């Protein structure tokens, strides 16, 4: 079996009071279906231990949980080694319903930006209101970072968890790194 590696190779940078780090191998499953379905809720609970997230929220804790991607799509987080088994569990639980579940773990980059001013660094790159009173813990948003699509949520510890396509992970990492180097903008 091949040796799985992340697109960022475990990178970690400390800039000022900020930390930007590769989150390592993370199991991710794209699940599409009727989000109000009982079978879907059961499947999500079975593999993540969490409920179906509300509109534009994520309930990921310790690498397990779910994020609201669209009215008919969730991104599930499970331990990397368990992703294929989780897809099998979902397929079995939802076999009577139209749905789609795919292990996309190796198609994604996953990093985290934390520390004082992290929301300002994010603000420089996405058309999103990151004010601390507006973008609060647990909120999830799909948007763009610089020139590429990305999804992110703010965790309870104040860190921004960023998910992007694998092919642009290096771009996103460097974008955040450079934005952090320039420091806070003192606007928020």
């Amino acid at each position, binding site marked *: 079996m091949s040796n799985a590696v992340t697109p960022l190779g475990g990178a970690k940078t400390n800039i000022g009071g900020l930390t930007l780090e590769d989150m390592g191998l993370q199991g991710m499953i794209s699940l599409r279906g009727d989000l109000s379905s009982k079978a879907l809720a059961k499947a999500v609970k079975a593999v993540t231990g969490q409920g179906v997230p509300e*509109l*534009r929220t994520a309930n990921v804790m310790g690498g397990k949980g779910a994020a609201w*991607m*669209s*009215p008919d*799509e969730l991104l599930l987080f499970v331990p990397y080694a368990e992703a294929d088994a989780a897809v099998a569990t979902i397929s079995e639980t939802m076999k009577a319903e139209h749905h789609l579940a795919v292990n996309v773990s190796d198609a994604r980059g996953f990093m985290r930006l934390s520390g004082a001013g992290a929301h300002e660094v994010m603000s420089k790159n996405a*058309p999103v209101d990151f004010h601390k009173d507006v973008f609060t813990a647990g909120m999830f*948003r*799909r*948007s*763009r970072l610089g020139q590429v*699509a990305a999804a992110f949520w703010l965790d309870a510890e104040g860190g921004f968890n960023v998910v992007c396509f694998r092919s642009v992970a290096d771009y996103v990492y460097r974008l955040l790194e450079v934005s952090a180097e320039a420091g806070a903008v003192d606007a928020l």
Partner: protein
Amino acid sequence: MLTLQCPYCGVDAEETELQGGGEAHLKRFGPGSNDDDFEGYLFLRENQKGIHFERWRHAYGCGKWFLAARHTNTLEVFGTYPAQSTEPPQHIKDAISAKLPGWKWGNFS
């Protein structure tokens, strides 16, 4: 700067998150239609200065298509609504009428 609220995810999406999809409420004329109808479907558009109904996609967000009513000159947005709508909802028509009495667009007024 154009900001449209996506009716599916509720985000006030700024235009760089969106992708325009041309005119809304087109009636398709396919195989079996006459040449005039087919030409109209392919090429003829309202494209007027004033109220306009358009298709937009929340491309960098939830990925869904939706429809929007906006003023092509002032960029005022009168509302957004689901792509499955065959005509603009009444509250949007009312909002347009309040600003542009006697407006007309295609078969809508």
